[in-house]
């Protein structure tokens, strides 16, 4: 069965640079979620999209923005990167508010 696809899997950036993470949800899933997981921490909700419209917003910094495109893939744009942004970024998708399936994550390292 198709799973959530994320790219890239690993990304190394310097402080103040910009990063773009991509997510391709499971086909026919209507909702996409972004989470940030720091070392030894639980995933923290950032933002979600339902049918290409932003549906909920969590603890997402103003330096970050996201959108969902007509083909349902989503991108998380992160600007003015800080050392503290180093984390695993997961994308998840669900259908009609049921269980969320997580992608493999993008490990972002900011140096």
């Amino acid at each position, binding site marked *: 069965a198709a799973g959530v696809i994320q790219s890239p899997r690993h990304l190394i950036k310097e402080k103040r640079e910009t990063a773009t993470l991509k997510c391709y949800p499971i086909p026919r899933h209507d*909702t996409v*979620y972004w*989470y940030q997981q720091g070392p030894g*921490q*639980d*995933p*923290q*909700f950032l933002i*979600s999209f*339902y049918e290409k419209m932003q*549906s*909920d917003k*969590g603890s997402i910094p103003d330096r970050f923005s996201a959108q969902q495109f007509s083909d349902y893939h989503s991108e998380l744009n992160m600007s003015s990167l800080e050392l503290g942004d180093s984390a695993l970024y*997961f994308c*998840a998708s669900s259908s009609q*508010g*049921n*269980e*969320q*399936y*997580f*992608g*493999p*994550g993008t490990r972002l390292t900011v140096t």
Partner: protein
Amino acid sequence: EDKVVQSPLSLVVHEGDTVTLNCSYEVTNFRSLLWYKQEKKAPTFLFMLTSSGIEKKSGRLSSILDKKELFSILNITATQTGDSAVYLCATYNTDKLIFGTGTRLQVFP
């Protein structure tokens, strides 16, 4: 403030033991509670519980929800080394998942 609390934080057992992981929650707009298993990668979905008192079972794993007392348990019987992972409990608040800090389970042969 919404919160999900898991206990114990860490558990070390031998293969064949049975373990019970606990999750309590205080969440507005509660819809359902989910259990995930996380090894060194993405959380893998285990169960979603919406109704009280109905046990969900998958092989050696089972889980139940008590909406009156606001908690859930995850049972793993006859543990195997492959069960070693962090087990995350999460609740839906409207559209987003709120995670607990997880229980780290280590199963030794």
